[in-house]
């Protein structure tokens, strides 16, 4: 009843199945970069967020702001991606700041007890001054 995918396509696995939908705005300021992902962050879109975070970190900004005001949903694959970015950021003296979180998204950080581990502020203005 259900359609299987040919083996050669299947072998590419899930890597190729991700992220063709997600738009991520990048705003480059003097010393900071603001990333604003648009849309739900789950297993299908988090690889694209990861690419975008790693690419921003390669520029060694003093601050990397992830603005989640356009993110109505995030699962643990998104959280994992942000944890990885935070650890990379710490090693390269970049300050990672999250802002603009909706309650629904904040609740996963609370459940994972990561709300105290990340620097989380209200909006990009607060993120610039923190």
């Amino acid at each position: 009843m259900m359609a299987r995918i040919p083996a050669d396509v299947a072998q590419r696995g899930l890597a190729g199945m991700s992220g063709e939908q997600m738009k991520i705005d990048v705003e480059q300021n003097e010393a900071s970069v603001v990333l604003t992902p648009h849309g739900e962050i789950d297993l299908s879109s988090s690889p694209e967020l990861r690419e975008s975070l790693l690419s921003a970190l390669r520029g060694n900004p003093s601050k990397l702001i992830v603005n989640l005001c356009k993110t109505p949903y995030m699962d643990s694959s998104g959280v994992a991606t942000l944890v990885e970015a935070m650890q990379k950021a710490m090693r390269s003296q970049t300050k990672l700041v999250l802002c603009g979180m909706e309650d629904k998204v904040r609740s996963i950080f609370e459940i994972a007890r990561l709300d105290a581990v990340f620097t989380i502020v209200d909006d990009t203005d607060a993120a610039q001054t923190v």
Partner: protein
Amino acid sequence: MSQSSAKPDGIHLRLEMLSQPRYLSGARELVAAVAKRLGFTEQACGQIALAIDEALCNVMCHGYGRDPNGVIWLSIEPLGGHAPDNGATGIKVVIEDEAKQIDPAKIKSRDLDDVRPGGLGVHIIHEVMDSVCFQKRETKGMRLSLEKRIDDDGADSGGCCTEGACGHER
């Protein structure tokens, strides 16, 4: 999928889906919308959607090893009276697969204090749902039975089991 007459086992909706991340949103929106109609608050529906998403991610990544050809079944049952106008007291969601079997006792999340990427899904599922049962299916694959009661804040409130198989079936 046979289209013959249905057994009265309480299941009102059943989704068969391929193990592809792009279908996660459809599956969780289905469950969240049903939970809403059964009487859960908006916030509870969001948490249920998250738990379902985490469970399906685990089947896709760990069970099927990211093979996009796996099949996953998700069934939904209102708890507390199956009549369409009876107030439901909760929701039961069962997720089944034909993926590799694993000892249910081995399915657990990392220590939360040891901050590293990943290792949160199972913890989230336990936090959100009132009852979480991992089982090996009789033939092949795994079965995860999840229950949540309405008007329950999702805090640890005595599910039938929180670690491993319980053999408990409604």
